[in-house]
């Protein structure tokens, strides 16, 4: 059952088309990330669901109910803002109780509910936290209070707008895990906006990659990473090597493609689309799917020889920037499984053989 359903929603700000016929279904209990660069319409999409913006066209349903003409305060939607938007003149207790007060919940109920939700967000152990004011809290505590405030009214849908943007890296990572666990415990339908692909991969059941007011691709983290539809998606989620070229020959169901710089690439079935000789193709290859062996130790056919141009050592992985004999730039991520390098000492200027499985080549739609 879809808890949130957008059907061909369009929103214009003057001449800018912030949402271009967006359709989206979010299932009950699901976490969906709206991912994209700034100005792609992700925040507008969220604000439209919250009723903070009125769409120019299209329908929005929350729990099968048409939201047209229903103001924000009657939508049963909880939202955590990027800067938390805590009420500066109210204490933590009053901030959290605000939604309950608006619903005329009795005083004793308010007290027990606030206590429960503080426990939920792991703030109950801090003595006197209820009496503190937002400016007396740390960034992480503020976020927990904002989360508690939006959860205490038991909304059907939780919206998070760049929720971890203001936190430093360590805290961000631990809060991401914590929020995900909390979401699973409550089973609340959640939509969050982010421009951070890692955050989307960490938290979301499905990721909607947005661009210019449209959803470019929606799918599980695995789907959008392993089979990106377009160059934009392949570039936005993760890092890719890109090639374009023409199909030159067919052999036993496989195809031989030559890139614009003249590098031959072997494509093997199963292929995502029908190919014929003469087609122009755009390909992507993830850097971790490329292996590197000393020149001459060939593992597979169709290896490329390349010169190491630059090496970045990052602890768990090493990034190699290489250039093939045909002049294609190929980046390689290698796990540092053994101390030192997998394939013996490698230095800038060495010539290596690069290989990859043909099925790891991603055929992209033309932009």
């Amino acid at each position, binding site marked *: 059952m879809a808890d949130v359903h957008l059907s061909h929603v369009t929103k214009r700000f003057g001449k800018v088309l912030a949402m271009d016929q967006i359709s989206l279904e979010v299932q009950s209990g699901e976490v969906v990330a709206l991912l994209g660069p700034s100005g792609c319409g992700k925040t507008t999409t969220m604000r439209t669901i919250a009723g903070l913006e009125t769409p120019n066209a299209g329908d929005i349903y929350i729990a099968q109910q048409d939201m047209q003409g229903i103001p924000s305060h009657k939508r049963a939607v*909880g939202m955590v803002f990027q800067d938390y*938007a805590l009420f500066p003149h109210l204490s933590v207790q009053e901030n959290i109780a605000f*939604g309950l007060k608006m619903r005329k919940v009795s005083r004793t109920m308010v007290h027990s509910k606030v206590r429960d939700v503080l426990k939920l967000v792991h703030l109950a152990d801090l003595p006197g936290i209820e009496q503190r004011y937002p400016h007396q809290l740390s960034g992480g505590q503020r976020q927990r209070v904002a989360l508690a405030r939006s959860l205490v009214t038991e909304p059907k849908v939780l919206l998070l707008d760049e929720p971890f943007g203001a936190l430093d890296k360590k805290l961000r990572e631990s809060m991401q895990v914590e929020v995900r666990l909390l979401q699973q415990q409550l089973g609340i339908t959640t939509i969050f906006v982010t421009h951070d692909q890692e955050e989307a991969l960490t938290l979301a059941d499905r990721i909607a990659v947005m661009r210019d007011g449209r959803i470019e691709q929606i799918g599980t983290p695995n789907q959008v990473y392993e089979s990106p539809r377009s160059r934009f998606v392949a570039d936005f989620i993760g890092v890719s090597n890109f090639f374009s070229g023409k199909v030159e020959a067919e052999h036993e169901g496989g195809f031989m493609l030559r890139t614009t710089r003249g590098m031959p690439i072997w494509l093997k079935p199963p292929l995502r689309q029908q190919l014929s000789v003469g087609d122009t193709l755009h390909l992507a290859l993830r850097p971790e799917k490329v292996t590197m062996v000393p020149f001459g130790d060939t593992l597979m056919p169709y290896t490329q020889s390349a010169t190491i141009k630059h090496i970045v050592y990052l602890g768990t992985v090493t990034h190699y920037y290489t250039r093939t004999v045909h002049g294609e730039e190929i980046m390689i991520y290698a796990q540092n499984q053994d101390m030192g390098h997998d394939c013996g000492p490698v230095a800038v200027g060495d010539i290596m053989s690069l290989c990859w499985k043909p099925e790891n080549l991603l055929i992209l739609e033309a932009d």
Partner: protein
Amino acid sequence: MRRGLRIAPWAPWGLLYGFCGLMLFFLAAPIVIILLVSFSDAEFVYFPPPGFTLRWYAHLVRMEGFVPSFLLSLRLALLVSGLALMLGTAASLALVRSTFPGRQWLNTFFMSPLIFPPIITGIALLQFFSTLGIRATFFTLMVGHTLITIPYVVRNVTASLQGLRSNVEEAARLLGANPWQTFWYITLPLIKPGLLAGGIFAFITSFDNYTISMWLKSAEETPLPLRIFFYIERIMDPSVAAVSGAMIVFSIVLVIVTEKAMGLSRAMNV
């Protein structure tokens, strides 16, 4: 090195403190003098006073018209600051929160009573009321004063509203507050500093206004500043100083009470 340009290290500080000292002196000296004169036992305003007495203060209460005038001015200033707060806040909300054609123009228009010489505003209002056949009463005074005090409220409240992040209001809406509840529980408490500052400016402006009241007052009731002026025209004895002294004390009490009750120093952004 030229010797003539050498400056002693204390000289800049000396200049700064000297300048500030003079500023304070010129601000405070008239007040001190008027207070001293109000206790003078001479029959005329004369400084330094030859001796001291409290009789001018006693005289004040007995003097015809001063107490009613004080009460009139107080009532007027209270009503006017209340009205100016309501109208000014509504205007500020419209100016800050909505975008409509002519918004900038309207903003300037609301400020115009500050720019126009008040005497002209006064004459214009008198003309306006007499054309409509409205007699000068407490009502006309109230309208006139409200008009000239609204800019102070608009100024201060607009500044407060601009400093307020509008997403706290959105957060309140999403927590189930309707627009009125949002205004009452969130917006209003957060713009309190601007309301207080605007309200106090409005009160003081109305309380010691002369130029507007001169045109719009009724024959029967005279606001305090006019009463003082009429008195000085006839007699220049220390009871005028006593009125001033009383007004100074009244202002100080007003500021202290507001400070204690609502935190004026925060309101004035001190």
